């Protein structure tokens, strides 16, 4: 059980780093926003593993849905591709 949890934490950490690099390096800003929301998903699982379910709920609702839609509206009103 403990071993499975440890492996899961490592896998999630690798996904977190890959998603963060993707969000920084991507020139298409819409895909970069999807990257940041993927970071939020993994972070909320991390908060749940670290026994902070309240923070996990907040991160899941605000980080994944609400901040993503605000970024998407901003991209819609400005430019989609980074120079």
């Amino acid at each position, binding site marked *: 059980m403990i071993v499975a949890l440890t492996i899961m934490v490592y896998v999630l950490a690798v996904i977190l780093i890959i998603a963060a690099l993707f969000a920084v390096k991507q020139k298409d800003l819409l895909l970069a926003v999807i990257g940041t929301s993927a970071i939020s998903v993994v972070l909320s699982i991390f908060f749940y593993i670290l026994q902070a379910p*309240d923070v996990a709920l907040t991160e899941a609702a605000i980080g994944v849905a609400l901040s993503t839609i605000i970024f998407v509206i901003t991209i819609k009103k400005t430019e989609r591709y980074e120079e």
Partner: protein
Amino acid sequence: MRKVLAVFLLGIMGFYLFSSFSEIPFGENRATVGDYYLENTVLQTGSVNTITSIVVSYRGFDTLGEVTVLFLASTGLAAILFDNKGRKRRRQHASLIVRVGAHLIYPLIILLGAYVFIHGHLTPGGGFQGGAIIATGVLLMFMSYRSFEVSHKWLTYLESFAGISFVTIGLSGLIWGESFLQNILPLGVPNELFSAGVIPIIYIAVGIKVGAELTGLLDNLLKTIK
């Protein structure tokens, strides 16, 4: 000359940082206030969820400040985005699968949000989380049905009602108790829905307020898209 001055200022900063941080012993838990909360929270507030008891009871005044900040933010955004023309979102529906799925899942999301803030003193979550979940559900309907409308008049009524009831509960603590936001209702049996005095009532008010504010904010933002 400027470099010498910068080095001098950095030296002063470094000296004071070192002298204040070298007093703190390394690798020792000096924060004992958490233990106090864990031991006394159920006896003093009747709330099983320690975080809720801290957010609403011990630090209730800070929560009132946070709610006020959110209210000011949404009001400011509405003021910036305001124009006199009756704005409407573009009337274009999503695909059939998205529409049917959204229609099925929308009441369940609203129910989950209401559950999270009504049971804030028993299970993880509370007013802010529940309100954000409700706003997410309304956002799903906004995205799938472009003709889905919310009445801003009712949102304003809900928001004002929730804010006024929060302040009224606080003032009644001042009248019948000793301090602002004091728990004046009986605490009841822990782990039951009707327990913890005024904590669930305050969290329901916060949940309604946050849900209404975030919904209005999203509607204002989505209406700016041409």
